[in-house]
């Protein structure tokens, strides 16, 4: 019974993706029946310049936003863990709000902010927005790692003559490295996944991959989308495996 139920739910989660991957190799444009194998849709993707541009934009935004979010988030987590300061409670409250806010609220409110500040929509607004929604997840990941390890290690370092900065750089950060790396990967994925926030804060000049897919999907059924979605699926398989490996090795 238990096994059947587990299998059914996994089937629900994976069947649509499996069918989509199969379609991506099907030469029939209308996906009605199986007509053998083809790599045409993947070839079309490779030849689509606009798509390549959007993919590069997405990778750049995801890489930069994940890195910026990881730096700010790691420093933020260390700050929350080590010190009592004005604004600490505010930061904790806003972290929860930031994590739980529906994307649509984040998108709308950042659009209002950027327009009011007269910032031109495009690369920078996307970067700031993506960094913003990644940030709380990095803080939470790193903070839970910090709370899991022995405070005595920091005190030992300081007893041995390490100053505050040396203790941070030589003890705290290395111990958190798996969590920091996992936070970066999660941020990278969140950024590649986002449709809603990007939809509001991007300009006409700067197209990212999810928005490109969105417009392809809305224009009608294109078998290239199957190939593209299959590639994204493969990428997330790779990234998840990497992050699981990072989080589950070494002492927690």
């Amino acid at each position: 019974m238990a096994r059947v139920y587990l299998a059914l739910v996994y089937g629900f989660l994976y069947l649509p993706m499996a069918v989509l991957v199969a379609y991506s190799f099907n030469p029939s444009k209308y996906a009605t029946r199986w007509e053998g194998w083809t790599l045409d849709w993947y070839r079309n993707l490779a030849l689509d310049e606009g798509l390549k541009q959007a993919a590069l934009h997405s990778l750049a935004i995801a890489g930069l936003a994940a890195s910026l979010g990881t730096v700010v988030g790691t420093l933020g987590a260390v700050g929350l863990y080590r010190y009592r300061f004005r604004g600490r409670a505010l930061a904790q409250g806003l972290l929860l709000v930031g994590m739980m806010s529906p994307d649509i609220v984040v998108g709308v409110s950042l659009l209002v902010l950027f327009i009011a500040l007269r910032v031109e929509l495009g690369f920078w607004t996307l970067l700031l927005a993506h960094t913003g929604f990644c940030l709380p997840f990095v803080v939470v990941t790193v903070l839970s790692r910090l709370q899991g390890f022995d405070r005595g290690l920091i005190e030992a370092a300081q007893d041995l003559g390490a100053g505050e900065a040396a203790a941070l750089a030589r003890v705290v950060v290395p111990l958190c490295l798996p969590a920091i790396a996992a936070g970066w990967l999660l941020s990278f994925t969140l950024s590649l996944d986002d449709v809603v926030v990007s939809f509001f804060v991007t300009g006409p000049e700067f197209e990212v991959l999810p928005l490109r897919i969105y417009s392809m999907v809305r224009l009608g059924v294109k078998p290239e989308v199957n190939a593209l979605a299959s590639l994204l699926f493969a990428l997330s398989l790779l990234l998840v495996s990497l992050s699981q490996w990072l989080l589950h090795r070494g002492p927690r």
Partner: protein
Amino acid sequence: MRTQPPAFAYFLPLWLTLFTLLPLLMVAAVSLMRRDESGLIAPVFTLANYARLLDPLYLRVFGHSLALAALATVLCLLVGYPFAYLLSRVRAGWRPALLTLVIVPFWTNSLARVYAMRGLLAAKGPVNALLLALGWIDEPVRLLYTGPAVAIGLVYVLLPFMVLPLYSSFEKLDHRLIEAARDLGAGRFATFWRVIVPLTAPGIAAGSLLVFLPALGMFYVTDVLGGARGLLVGNFLKDQFLDARDWPFGAAASVLVIALLFVCLALYGRVRGGVGHG
């Protein structure tokens, strides 16, 4: 002893104030202003935007969206609760692999996943083909562009967000408490309802929040599977901000969503606070 925290400690509160708090306050401010003739915002105080939201037309959008998000949450809970429980009882050797299989969809581009569901539900897709082959129907039934299609899409995209917090609740569950309940004479149902459910309440609350709140805004799910316009608050906000360009009115609707967010967070705080640290 440390007396003065280093400058970097202030960086996070500063960032969050600038990019989380300030934008929300600005939305609230815009919602109290008027749209002027040139499509811009006139700095005049008014409550007219909120009055307009009381129009049955807009109330219906909100009602529909809330109902759909609630339906998706309940379905995710019904499917995810036993699933997370069984997952926590799987032999330890198998667990990491099975857990990874839950995390992969969570990390996969959700638009790609919604699109995959569209392929499954299409008129000439596998679901219709299967129903035809089984002889349950005589011609393909319309599955796409229906309310149930949107609900299925939301459940499909958001199920991992329900399962993961539930799983971590079940993982922490002390099974001696269940044995104790049974020893003290509790039946199966009483054990479930009075011991297991309260102990996993933080997971139920977290999972429900992570499904309910995003479900209000995912306009691309209705775009790809639903067809019908104005089904979710998300579609409505998108239209007001980007098509109709009536920002004050859109902002007023956003304020309602933000208010809902704070109500949910307050309820969540009570559940977590009520059961101790879970």
